[in-house]
């Protein structure tokens, strides 16, 4: 027999209570793990956006177009290294609910600006030469099972094809991967020229410009230069870093997200308070037994350690099980959610945070009874019992 044996025996003396306590903790951490991961996935768009890329959009709103002439004008500006332009296609595959992130881009400059896009040289030149060619991300290819050379019909919820309908046929010229694993490859890009020739509105407007500067320290100056040079024109611009742009976009989900997370976290802490109370009382019930141990000659420090270990153990068993369940839940939901939340991964910081809360729960609920045990006067304890 060891102290650990005593701790385990103490813990399991009322199996039903232990089960209920662990279950409540399990639920609390299941929700904590799942919701924190969800929140992390929502925020990840901000973190992954490059800080040294600038986005130029129409000052009125990013959904309003800019004239194509801005592409040449910005490219000629001092401090600009590479610039490309993009149009939002509003694409979907077969069914309007199966949305695809699809953009019409200027191919060569696109690959220069988005240098984290990795592609085989022969696929690259194949794409550049084929007007109808599309470059698709590895993730997209996986979801739909598309291979190089496949003909894929992509529809637009915004534009109409000159030949009638809203569906464009593309040929998969290449499949790209990201420079690092976090890079979201769940999108498709195709030739701007092909887009302009085949859609009914015609014209030559672009959605927005993305550019890199000679040096990130120039960003502010370049942004200012761009916006100033188009001030008072028919199309004023608003230039910001890609990160700030993404952040503003995500913030548009609104305080709804904030309210939901606030409510969930409040509930998480309340459950911990309720459970902690039970755990603390469970130990307090044993005052008499602790007095016996002390009488037998167990030192206060030793009893203190045993009491604290017990509540830590309970918190960790319930908590880690909950966290593991959250992990399985997320892994299971990953495929289904891949299109909305590409970065649904339980991060190390979530795990660490959760373990921190478990330790805190164990310490706080164990500390008070443990201190009481430390101070316990054997005589009064026996009189009480």
């Amino acid at each position, binding site marked *: 027999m060891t102290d650990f044996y005593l701790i385990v025996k103490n813990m399991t003396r009322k199996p*039903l*209570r232990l089960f*209920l*306590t662990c*279950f*409540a903790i*399990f*639920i*609390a951490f*299941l*929700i904590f793990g799942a*919701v924190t991961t969800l929140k992390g996935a929502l925020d990840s768009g901000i973190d992954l956006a490059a800080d040294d890329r600038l986005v130029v959009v*129409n*000052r*009125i*709103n990013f*959904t*309003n177009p800019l004239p194509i002439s801005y592409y040449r004008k910005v490219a000629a500006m001092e401090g600009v290294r590479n610039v490309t332009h993009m149009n939002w296609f*509003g694409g979907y595959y077969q069914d*309007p609910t199966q949305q695809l992130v699809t953009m019409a881009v200027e191919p060569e400059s696109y690959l220069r600006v988005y240098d984290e896009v990795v592609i085989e040289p022969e696929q690259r030149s194949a794409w550049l030469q084929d007007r109808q060619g599309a470059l698709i991300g590895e993730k997209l290819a996986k979801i739909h099972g598309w291979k190089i050379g496949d003909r894929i019909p992509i*529809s*637009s*919820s*915004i534009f*109409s094809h000159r030949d009638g309908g*809203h569906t464009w046929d593309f040929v998969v010229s290449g499949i790209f991967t990201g420079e690092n694993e976090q890079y979201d490859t769940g999108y498709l890009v195709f030739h701007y020229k092909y887009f302009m020739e085949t859609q009914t*509105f015609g014209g030559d407007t672009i959605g927005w410009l993305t550019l890199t500067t000679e040096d990130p320290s120039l960003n502010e100056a370049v942004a200012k230069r761009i916006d100033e040079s188009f001030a*008072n*024109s*028919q*199309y*004023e611009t*608003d230039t910001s870093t890609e990160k700030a742009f993404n*952040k*503003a976009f995500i*913030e*548009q*989900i*609104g*305080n*709804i*997200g904030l*309210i*939901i997370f606030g*409510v*969930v976290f*409040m*509930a998480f802490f*309340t*459950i911990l*308070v*309720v*459970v902690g*109370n*039970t755990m*603390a*009382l*469970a130990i307090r019930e044993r005052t*008499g037994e602790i007095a016996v141990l002390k009488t037998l000659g167990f030192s206060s420090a030793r009893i203190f350690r045993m009491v604290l270990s017990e509540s830590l153990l309970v918190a960790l068993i319930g908590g880690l099980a909950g966290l593991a369940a959250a992990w399985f839940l997320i892994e299971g939901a990953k495929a289904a959610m891949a299109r909305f939340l590409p970065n649904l991964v339980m991060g190390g910081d979530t795990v660490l945070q959760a373990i921190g809360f478990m330790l805190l729960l164990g310490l706080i609920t164990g500390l008070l009874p443990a201190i009481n045990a430390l101070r316990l006067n054997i005589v009064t304890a026996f009189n009480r*019992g």
Partner: protein
Amino acid sequence: MGSLFSQIATVTVMNVRSLPRRLWMSLAMVLASAVVVAILLAFLAMARGFERTMDGAGSEGTAILMREGAASEINSVISREQVNLVEASPGIARDAEGPLVSPELYVIVDGIKKSTDSEANIALRGLNARGMAMRENMQLLEGRLFTPGTNEMIVGAGVLREFDGFAVGDEVRFGKNVWRVVGVFSTSGSAFESELWADVKVIQSLYDRGSSVQTVRAKLENPGDLAPLEKTIEQEPRLNLEVQTEQAYFAGQGKQLQYMAIFGRVISFVMALGALAGALNTMYTSVADRAREIATLRALGFSSFSAFCGTLAEALVLAIAGGLLGSLAAFLFFDGLNASTFGGSFTQVVFRFEMSPDLLLQGAWLALVIGFVSGFFPAWRAARLPVIVAFRNAA
């Protein structure tokens, strides 16, 4: 011993009176019940508020026409020629001035949100007097309507609440265009309140839209009857349009928040399981705590049924107290809470959490269920407690 009823009453009163003695345990139970009720109510109030905003916007009596394949107003384009063809269609209500049809433009502009101090999308809708008349619940709260042909606009009450710089008299700049706010309108909380309204012709010229619009709204001759319009579209090849009632359109736009409501229900259900475990624990401990007391009563001749009822009543009292506390907290924190999120057309929809009596009733039911479940099993144990416990030593 008196009647069963008086036995139960005696035991119940005794249990409830001894609650303060088990103060912390009792509080834990109250808290567990309160948090579950509060969470459920928060999500329900959110869903209710959003629903109200979306439902209120859509009328059965109005048809909305958009380009075929356009999922929302922002994606649609309709030419002047097509508008004329629609106006000539049967099935549309008419008055002395002709068919009740409103060609509308929908532009997205930036506003500065008060809550985050960052830019967010607002819908700027171009419409005419007929279009405004078509929104039956529209009311001018302040100022006056815009004068057609000028850079004047009126703002929805929701925009005024959530965004900076849209008070009556303010000048607002979108790009190089300057607008003047002349009035504030309400549409009894519906999604239109999250928009800015101005003259459709002015927007056409300022935003290079020529004579095209994005959507056409038409007052139906018979509410809900789209058949004549559908027939017109079918027979006229130039009309590559889709028609649906406005109500159906907004119901579709509200879908994504329905997911949030489902998410909320799932979370509250799972949380309820956790809290239930806590509550059960409390009641089991309460029974263990009073084992001698219960056994002594049983020895005196009280029936086991009265012991059962006493414990169940204790759980119900605590759970209901928690339910009240949770409802009160939810009401204080969430009722009327301003919220905003992305609506269907890439624009902000402003809405209010709405805590109505029927939601509070749902919360009360939940509290009762928690009380019953967390009381039943421990009460069962209390009823089956052997009388002999009374004579054993507490050690």
